[in-house]
């Protein structure tokens, strides 16, 4: 029998405290393994002087093409250099090229794309046609020719070359995003309030298109590293004396005939694994977007 004392007016009570949200493991959804691997590679390459067993540039001619064993952990290449040390030392060059060229290409792409996005329609058309012509010129040609102008290749020149040729797709994306953000109401409101071009660029446009290019920038690092290794393999990248993962692979033709699988496999595995982890990171960045439900299943 319910007591009558419950039937009286009490009005609105304050909302009860919500129980603390169930703690989701902070590492769920993030590619932990990839990040850890990348950190290992990065620190390994940076601190390689402390644990390298041999000098990577030393040509130990008595020990050419030795399979992996106790003394040479990953074996030696056809010129007698220790592959284990070369991996860590050469990783520096590859990573540096990847990061530096991406910085360069992102910088160019942001300037170009933002300018084109804010420009009047005719200028925008012109700039986009220019980008399309740049895409249609064969990339190989540009690289070779710029190489010829700059002289013998070095880490800096290769980064420059890859940076100069890699900005086009990002610029297109940035320009589309900027065009779209410009129509948003908060930008119109800022203009009404008296905001100048730079204020709008800094406060309104940039923070909104940066997330979408984060993903592209990470992918650019990956393609820059892959491009460097391809170029070095073909002989127009870093020369043999400058050690990078790509230049290590440029000896592979000789290695094939010598059946020295470790010269080909080991640098390639490191290269692929690094690229894979960078890709995972990029994909995770892209997934941090709004999700809609799947209407079909």
């Amino acid at each position, binding site marked *: 029998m319910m007591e009558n004392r419950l039937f009286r007016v009490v009005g609105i009570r304050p909302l009860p405290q919500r129980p603390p*949200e169930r703690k989701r493991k902070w590492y769920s959804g993030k590619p932990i393994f990839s990040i850890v691997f990348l950190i290992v590679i990065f620190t390994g390459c940076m601190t390689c002087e402390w644990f390298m067993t041999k000098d990577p540039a030393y040509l130990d001619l008595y020990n050419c093409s030795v399979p992996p064993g106790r003394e040479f952990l990953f074996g030696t290449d056809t010129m007698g250099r220790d592959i284990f040390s070369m991996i860590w030392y050469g990783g520096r060059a590859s990573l540096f090229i990847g990061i530096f060229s991406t910085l360069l290409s992102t910088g160019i792409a942001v300037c170009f794309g933002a300018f084109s996005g804010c420009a009047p329609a005719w200028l925008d058309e012109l700039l986009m046609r220019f980008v399309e012509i740049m895409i249609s010129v064969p990339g190989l040609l540009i690289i070779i020719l710029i190489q010829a102008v700059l002289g013998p290749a070095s880490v800096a020149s290769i980064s420059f070359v890859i940076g100069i040729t890699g900005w086009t797709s990002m610029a297109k994306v940035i320009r589309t995003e900027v065009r779209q953000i410009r129509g948003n109401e908060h930008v119109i409101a800022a203009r009404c309030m008296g905001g100048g071009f730079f204020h709008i660029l800094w406060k309104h446009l940039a923070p909104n298109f940066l997330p979408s290019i984060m993903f592209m920038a990470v992918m650019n690092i990956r393609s820059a590293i892959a491009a460097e290794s391809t170029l070095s393999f073909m002989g127009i990248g870093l020369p043999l004396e400058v050690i990078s993962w790509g230049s290590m692979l440029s000896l592979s033709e000789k290695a094939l005939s010598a059946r020295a699988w470790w010269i080909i496999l080991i640098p390639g595995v490191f290269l692929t694994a690094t690229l894979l982890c960078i890709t995972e990171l990029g994909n995770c960045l892209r997934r941090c977007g709004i999700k809609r439900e799947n209407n079909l299943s």
Partner: protein
Amino acid sequence: MSGLLEIKNLSVSFFTPEGEVQAVRDVSLSLKEGEVLALVGESGCGKSVLCKSIMKLLPSAAKIKAGNIFADGADITNYRERDMCRLRGKLFSMVFQDPMTSLNPAMSIGAQIGEAVRSHERRISGAALEARVMELIALAGLDRPEAYRKLYPHHLSGGMRQRCVLAVALAGNPRILFADEPTTALDVTIQAQILELFREIQRKLRTATIFVTHDLGVVARAADRVAVMYAGRIVEIGTAEEIFYDPRHPYTQALMRSLPAFSRGRDTLYTIPGMPPALLDPPGGDAFAWRNVNALDVDYEEAPPMFRVTDSHYAATWLLDERAESIRKQISGQGGCGHLDLENSGCQSGKKEAGKNRDVQTADAGKPQEVLLEVQHLSHMYSLGKGRAVRAVEDVSFQIRRGEIFGLVGESGSGKSTVARCIMNIYRPRKGRILYKGIDTCDPRQFRANRKMLQTCRQLIFQDSASSLNQRMKVWDIIAEPMKLGHRKPPRGSFRAEAEFQMHYVGLDPCYLDKYPSELSGGQRQRVAIARALTMEPEFLAADEPIASLDVSIQAQIVNLFKHLQQEHGFTFLFIAHDLAMVEFLCDRVGVMYKGRLVESGTVEEVFSHPGHPYTQALLSAIPIPDPGRERARKPAELREEEFSLEGESVEISPGHFVLRKKG
């Protein structure tokens, strides 16, 4: 089982990573052949989920936790997808909210309707299929079916698309039709036509319909029975007359009271305090108790069962328990006007007082108020390239006096947004002048000379959408932005303190200072936009559809805020909206726009009681009135998609009341 559709104690939950969201809790309903049932409630109360769960169209994260659904005698609760496919289209079918995206943009109308027909009559021949498709198109009220058959969705306007969606839904002769807010995205006049169409089809085909909506006017026009939902539960169910004239549950009563028509002549709209609960961890007991001024102790303890008022009227509130007899008398004695009585608009005393206030204002208006903004013969065009141009605004002239709220109404495409943007110098109009305090803002030289003053004294508020606030700026940064841009030193010390003051002023908790707009609700975001506009202490505020995307109860809160700003501080507003009821409540004077021209302008009383232009008359007659008796008795004017004449000039038919008319 008597009914066509029977739902018993249905509970549906979404299993999300954050936890279980109980969207539908313990719902029981029944639907008879040929009956129209309306599901009313605010957004998020579970009405859409209920319909989709009956048709099993929910995403895989949603599961039926408990309860049974009986359709035409069979228990379909555990039916698999294969069996449901056979039923969908044949037994029940659905019309969705947004006609723009409901149709496949790459298939022609005829193909889509034909597909619907063929999914249930596999062996139908080519000629018979065509005939049936044309029959359906004609049934949906589109004349010349052969022409429509080959068109694509993007060739059609919103109303025509919704008719096509209806034709698709009726292809299999369904016995139950679910309509999920079918007219929310449409203009008022189109809405009236579509509702008329629904009624006609329901009469011809005897289809039972479940209408989901949040608009009580639509309910009054379209429904036989009404079920009110709140927080996933049905709180009251009964015939339309019973719900509108004798609401028993406090939430239903509050809904009725928050209609603008109820507050006619008063200073503020009645608002329901608080916000709808999040269904992630729904509170125990009666979910409405946390917003109910007259909540009982037992409401917090235990959820009330359905109590019987009459055979057809049930309400789930402890007030109907016999132990609450004394409380009921107590509450009704306080004059809590529960029901709708539009003739004597409820509280007589309130009206008289408000009448007095109005008189005072008009007495003041005897001394001519200064004209703050004057628009003279404004014209603007958009060019679409290839030599084509669209006339957005043509020859619009009106005045706004200091301290008044001027409403600009019209349907989509009428040019009202363009007028606002021209006034705020976002666009430069092709022709015409806009004088703000005597300065011609369209003249570049004068604009530059007075730029600072113009940029601080006039501010703009947009419709709440994802793009009206910068998602990557914190709330206090957004509010303080005008001050930073205007290089003004914050009078309260720092920008942050200034932002806090403005937030307090518009009724936002200061704990939101460091949050991002995505963490706020629609009403809160709109308050931030208003606070941002108020930072520079403007004189004139232009609001471009500020309440269109908000819930009804939140709309009332924002409108009250506007009214408060006008009365306490003398702000002048240009209020653009398409909801005529809100405009009638809030505005002093109003202008009606149609296809870029201002067809009528004058005081609200004049225009709404004696509309001069045929378009205004059609518009007013198309608005559904939330009163079933009057709605049924009303015969809507012959509403076709006709063109109203736009010839003539502005003729003053009574002091202050201008109509576009042919002279002589």
